[in-house]
């Protein structure tokens, strides 16, 4: 079938209609409008072709003329035709704007939204206002326009706009009140706007609409959610008898017969719940919401797709909700949906994210996932066409790989997982790359030291490449992954990684414009120089540019996290040979410009106990009694005023700090006494403690158990004199170390 014939026909018909639209006779115009309307409704292809023929400005012109003609109305017949023309042209414009971006743009460009508002809805048109058809037609069309992302921003701050909006909401017609609600749902973005709307009392009307028709109910639910979203202040003002009524009304609607309404009601409650510490916190409502959303997943259409996102917003970051969801077999239910196969991408993404949230904090969820063989489906999703799905799959992996039990069993470090993940490091989408880095950061914490798999598959090359990315988020996450990869790695492994990284790259990353990147780079170096004495040598590569960079950053940094990592680097280097210790001394005693004292003094006085701890460690390691040069270093430290500061910390409120200070003081004192044989054992113990280079942060339960694992495994290793506890980071939010 020749395509040219079809489009030629289309154009002929199209041109014919457009020609008749320009006719001077109203009847002809009206007929042409109706035909145009019937051609384009539901028909995206026709909309496009009529758009190209310039239909939108033509119809907007007709509408404009008709609206002006209303004033000149002289008889009923005329009125009727003018009214019909307005209705039909509004319908045409509304249809062009319906789910069709190019159409919305054309309609807005022609100023049709203002025309429709003026012509159909504004009070000054009493003649037309008596025709409900006109009002309805106008309201419908405007609603279509406002449902688009390109809709003009409704300026709530303007008083007349607010009044107009209120008049819309209070209107009897469900199309008109629906338009009002639609404007709120789509235009209200800032907290100021939310407050304005709340203060204007729209909630009362919206609540009454909850009892209206289906359309009014749905529109109202969306609007209510929009007003409260992420705004604890507005929610806190939502008190009084009205509140109870509104809330119980919405809670009832959660059981509505229509799936979409149930979803909207749930979303509304979730929004209120998330913004308020006191509403909707009882177990009953929590369980109801969870069960409702899990059930909504069964819906085959859009509602089912969106239900999983709603579920995520309900449980994200909330351990109690995740536990409840687990108890009602949430993981299994999500898995069952995942299993169905050939899922719509949106649905696929939603379910993966929901699983990611379920497994973010609870080991029971992760275990369940792994026992159900979820991993296989997740790994398949890593190669999905949609970047959102790929991203979601990575996030799911990241959550599941927080399982220490399985990390230590090496469940994740195998080719089926690593190969597709590494491939994603090269993904076209930045978001996917970042998500993949997150998953990799966890997976490379492999306790069975099978990191060679990752290295062999080219992982390191890609990570190093990404650490040079223009995008700071990518640099940051790549460094985090490298940091975890290098943690307690074998010598050969470290060497390969360092060769790829190079000293100059590390030095420049330490001086990166982004503070968070600096922090990760320093943490990486800290893990790099940990281990055998020869690991410390890395920091002296290329004339010691890394050490210089570390020193420099310590002198100018203002962020505690950077200072902490930097001090631990110096502290670790100070466990090395004499020359290493001397190099650290040089760095410490170097003063920054305009500074009268060494930076370490500032750290010793810091409010942050972690920083004080790190600083004392460095001093400890520099002055350990068994090293020949220690007494000389002690003198220098004394002269710089550092020793007296440490002495002042003897009653530090933080136990960690206090214990280290005690040890340090004992070390200082040992140089005063002569070496008595009875003290030998004591010195040995002190020295062993002094070589501790990492400290575990007990704030995270998981890290504590990892630390215990290592304490155990290291104790078995007789060659090492010291027990080492370790520090590394899981890919967790910034506040945990």
């Amino acid at each position, binding site marked *: *079938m020749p*395509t040219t*014939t*079809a489009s030629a*026909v*289309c154009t002929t018909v199209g041109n014919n209609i457009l020609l008749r639209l320009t006719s001077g006779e109203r009847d002809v115009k009206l007929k042409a409008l*109706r035909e145009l*309307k*019937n051609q384009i*409704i*539901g*028909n*995206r*292809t026709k909309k496009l072709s009529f758009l190209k023929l310039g239909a939108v400005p033509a119809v907007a012109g007709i509408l404009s003329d008709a609206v002006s003609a209303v004033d000149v109305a002289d008889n009923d017949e005329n009125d009727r035709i003018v009214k019909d023309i307005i209705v039909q042209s509004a*319908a045409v414009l*509304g*249809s062009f704007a*319906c*789910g069709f971006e190019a159409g919305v743009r054309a309609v807005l460009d022609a100023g049709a939204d203002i025309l429709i508002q003026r012509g159909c809805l504004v009070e000054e048109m009493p003649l037309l206002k008596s025709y409900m058809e006109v009002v309805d*037609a106008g309201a*419908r069309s405007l609603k*279509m326009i406002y449902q688009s992302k390109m809709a003009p921003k409704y300026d709530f701050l303007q008083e007349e706009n607010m009044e107009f909006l209120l008049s819309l909401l209070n209107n009897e017609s*469900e199309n008109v009140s629906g338009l009002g609600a639609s404007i709120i749902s789509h235009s209200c973005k800032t907290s100021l706007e939310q407050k304005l709307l709340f203060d204007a009392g729209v909630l009362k009307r919206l609540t009454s609409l909850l009892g209206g*028709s*289906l*359309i009014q109910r749905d529109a109202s639910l969306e609007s209510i959610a929009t007003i409260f979203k992420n705004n604890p202040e507005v929610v806190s003002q939502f008190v009084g008898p009205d509140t109870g009524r509104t809330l119980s009304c919405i809670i009832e609607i959660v059981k509505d*017969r229509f799936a979409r309404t149930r979803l909207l009601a749930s979303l509304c409650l979730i929004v209120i719940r998330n913004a308020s510490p006191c509403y909707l916190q009882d177990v009953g409502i929590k369980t109801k919401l969870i069960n409702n959303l899990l059930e909504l997943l069964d819906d085959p259409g859009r509602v089912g797709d969106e239900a999983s996102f709603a579920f995520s917003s309900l449980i994200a970051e909330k351990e109690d909700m995740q536990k409840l969801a687990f108890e009602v077999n949430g993981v299994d239910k999500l898995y069952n949906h995942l299993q169905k196969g050939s899922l719509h991408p949106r649905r696929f993404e939603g379910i993966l994210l929901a699983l990611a949230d379920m497994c973010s904090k609870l080991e029971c969820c992760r275990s369940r996932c792994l026992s159900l063989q979820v991993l296989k489906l997740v790994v398949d999703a890593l190669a999905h066409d949609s970047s959102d799905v790929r991203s979601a799959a990575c996030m799911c992996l990241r959550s599941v790989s927080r399982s220490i039990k399985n990390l230590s069993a090496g469940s994740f470090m195998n080719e089926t997982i690593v190969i597709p993940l590494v491939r994603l490091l090269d993904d076209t989408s930045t978001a996917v790359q970042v998500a993949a880095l997150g998953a990799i950061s966890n997976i490379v914490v492999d306790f069975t030291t099978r990191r060679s798999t990752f290295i062999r598959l080219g992982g390191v090359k890609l990570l190093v490449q990404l650490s040079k990315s223009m995008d700071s988020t990518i640099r940051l996450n790549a460094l985090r992954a490298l940091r975890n990869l290098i943690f307690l790695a074998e010598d050969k492994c470290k060497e390969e990684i360092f060769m790829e990284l190079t000293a100059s790259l590390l030095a420049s990353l330490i001086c990166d414009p982004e503070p968070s990147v600096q922090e990760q780079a320093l943490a990486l170096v800290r893990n790099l120089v940990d281990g055998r004495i020869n690991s410390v040598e890395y920091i002296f590569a290329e004339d010691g540019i890394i050490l210089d960079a570390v020193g420099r950053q310590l002198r100018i940094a203002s962020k505690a996290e950077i200072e902490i990592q930097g001090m631990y680097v110096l502290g670790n280097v100070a466990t090395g040979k004499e020359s290493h210790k001397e190099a650290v001394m040089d760095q410490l005693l170097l003063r920054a410009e305009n500074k009268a004292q060494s930076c370490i003094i500032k750290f010793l006085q810091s409010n942050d106990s972690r920083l004080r701890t790190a600083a004392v460690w460095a001093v400890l390691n520099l002055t350990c009694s068994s090293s020949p040069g220690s007494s000389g270093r002690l003198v220098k430290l004394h002269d710089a005023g550092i020793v007296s500061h440490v002495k002042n910390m003897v009653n530090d409120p933080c136990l960690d700090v206090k214990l280290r200070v005690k040890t340090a003081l004992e070390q200082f004192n040992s140089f005063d006494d002569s070496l008595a044989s009875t003290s030998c054992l004591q010195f040995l113990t002190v020295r062993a403690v002094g070589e501790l280079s990492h400290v575990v942060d007990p704030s995270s339960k998981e890290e504590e158990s990892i630390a215990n694992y290592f304490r155990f495994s290291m104790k078995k290793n007789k060659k090492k004199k010291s027990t080492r506890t370790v520090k590394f980071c899981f890919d967790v939010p910034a506040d945990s170390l």
Partner: protein
Amino acid sequence: MSKKVITREEWEKKLNDVKIRKEDMNKLVMNFLVTEGYVDAAEKFRMESGTEPDIDLATITDRMAVKKAVQCGNVEDAIEKVNDLNPEILDTNPQLFFHLQQQRLIELIRNGKVEEALEFAQEELAPRGEENQSFLEELERTVALLAFEDVSNCPVGDLLDISQRLKTASEVNAAILTSQSHEKDPKLPSLLKMLLWAQNQLDEKAAYPRINDLATATLEDPAI
């Protein structure tokens, strides 16, 4: 396993003890008439029983006009009427719109207008398949009609049945009802389904007078 036997006398006595309100029954009847679109009957019933319909009877007339147009094969007319009633319906229901277009094609083929049918398929239906992959299979089936000389006896001949028209008509009816916030299915069939289900459940435990013919609803003695 021995089942409990309930005689007709016992059963009828039990039935008599259950009270049903007349208003409830009237509402069910009205709901049925309104949803199915029997305007005149609904109007008369309202007058005679005093039962208020749950939607405006005037809107039923419009809806019925659409349904009738489809049932008679005047699909273009039906589309115009739907768009007059509510231009949003077809714009937001791609599946319904596709089925209506499909029906138009079927009618053209039924009337032997092959040239027009070809053009229509090319211009109107093919784009639907392009816009939405899920329609492709049905599209192919429909277009296949054009390939056969003897359309009524071909593998896709069922598309020419009146039942296809009724199916489309029913779909349009449901969409209009939904847009008017009304439920698209009457309550009566659900009630009857429940009755049948309940009887099936009871069959496992007892022998009792059953309703086997829903149309007559007569009690038939249990087989002993």
